[in-house]
């Protein structure tokens, strides 16, 4: 505990020439450290350091504004990504082919899977955006310019459009991962739509390697 000792002579701290009785004060800091530890523990447990981030998302309206054939036309040029349960993900290009189960390709959330395929399809816009990034880092163009041009490239005519459909068994994480890939692969035009029976049929067919369709054939 704290002590106050008085030293008549022979102490280390000698004020020059004074004949006062030297007192040396030892204050024990242990309780103070104790309190500090408690306060730190309180703050570490009750607060969070990072503010949560968000992804902005725009959904299409429910009211059918476009005539039906227009959406079909878009679908024939689009890539459809199907998110199924068990962290599995499939995609097909254009309109679905119900007769051939291999037309539905399986991929994964790893960087070699969906990302590699989309980067390949979008190679035009991706290379241009990488050039723009280099220019921004070398301060040749401003931040605002960079953003405007990136948006233009992402929604440009050569960028594929992606339609995302998720089954009921998939998890929220799967959906967010898919939306992430859109952002990483610089795809500006994508939509989350309801999954249709045809797509569920395709997935089941693929998972059973064609056995499922034979049940209907007979």
């Amino acid at each position, binding site marked *: 505990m704290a002590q106050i000792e008085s030293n008549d002579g022979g102490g280390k701290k000698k004020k020059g020439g004074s004949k006062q009785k030297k007192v040396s004060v030892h204050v024990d800091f242990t309780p103070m*450290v104790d309190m500090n530890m408690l306060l730190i523990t309180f*703050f570490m447990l009750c607060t969070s350091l990072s503010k949560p981030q968000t992804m*902005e998302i725009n*959904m299409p*309206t429910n009211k059918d504004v476009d005539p039906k054939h227009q959406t079909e036309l878009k679908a024939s040029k689009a890539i459809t990504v199907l998110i199924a349960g068990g962290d599995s993900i499939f995609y097909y290009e254009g309109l679905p082919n119900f007769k051939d189960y291999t037309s539905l390709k399986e991929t994964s959330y790893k960087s070699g899977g969906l990302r590699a395929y989309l980067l390949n399809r979008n190679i035009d816009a991706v290379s241009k955006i990488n050039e723009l990034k280099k220019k921004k880092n070398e301060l040749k163009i401003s931040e605002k310019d960079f953003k405007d041009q990136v948006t233009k490239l992402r929604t440009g005519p050569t960028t594929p459009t992606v339609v995302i459909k998720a089954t009921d068994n998939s998890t929220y994480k799967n959906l967010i991962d898919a939306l992430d890939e859109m952002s990483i692969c610089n795809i500006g035009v994508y939509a989350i739509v309801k999954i249709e029976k045809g797509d569920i049929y395709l997935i089941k067919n693929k998972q059973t390697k064609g056995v499922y369709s034979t049940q209907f054939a007979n």
Partner: protein
Amino acid sequence: MSKIKVARKSTLIDMTAMSDVTVLLLTFFMLTSTFVKKEPVTVKTPGSVSEIKIPETNILQILIDPKGKVFMSLDKQSDMINTLEAVGKEYNMTFSAEEINAFKVQKTFGVPMKVLRGFLAQKADEQDRTLANYGIPNDSTDNQFKIWVKNARIKNRDLRIAIKADEKTPYKVIKNVMNSLQDLNENRYNLITALKAPSKQ
């Protein structure tokens, strides 16, 4: 008995340096962190590369737990009072001043209208314990969730909607919530995620 005498050394350690370091750590934590809101269920949000920060005010946060229960929280207390009264009007319920007080101090709410009165009469810690078992009904037969969101929007035009769901929440639940929001013509909303770097596997 040993004849060798060990010189007794003092065991007092000088704690000044240690308390110095702890004071610095403490100051760092006090200045850089924010208090987390008390939520009925802990939700682990999925990671995303998006770096857009969540806006601070005028937020309607929809919390969805892995079992599919929906809870809501508004950041302004005046919003909460107005929304409660508006929803009460739809169900022909009026609330006394105490019930309104009990409601507005809750951070996250989410009970069906039938049990709302009983719930508000409970004490605060009982409320915390039982809230996790409830959740606003969101099925097609009794979509109270839609009514809450509609009235919250009417009372505050600038409200922004943010959805905070657990990683493992099945898509079916999210789909229902998104469909309800689409029916109300709410097409712009945020999904709350944790920051992660793109995977380089």
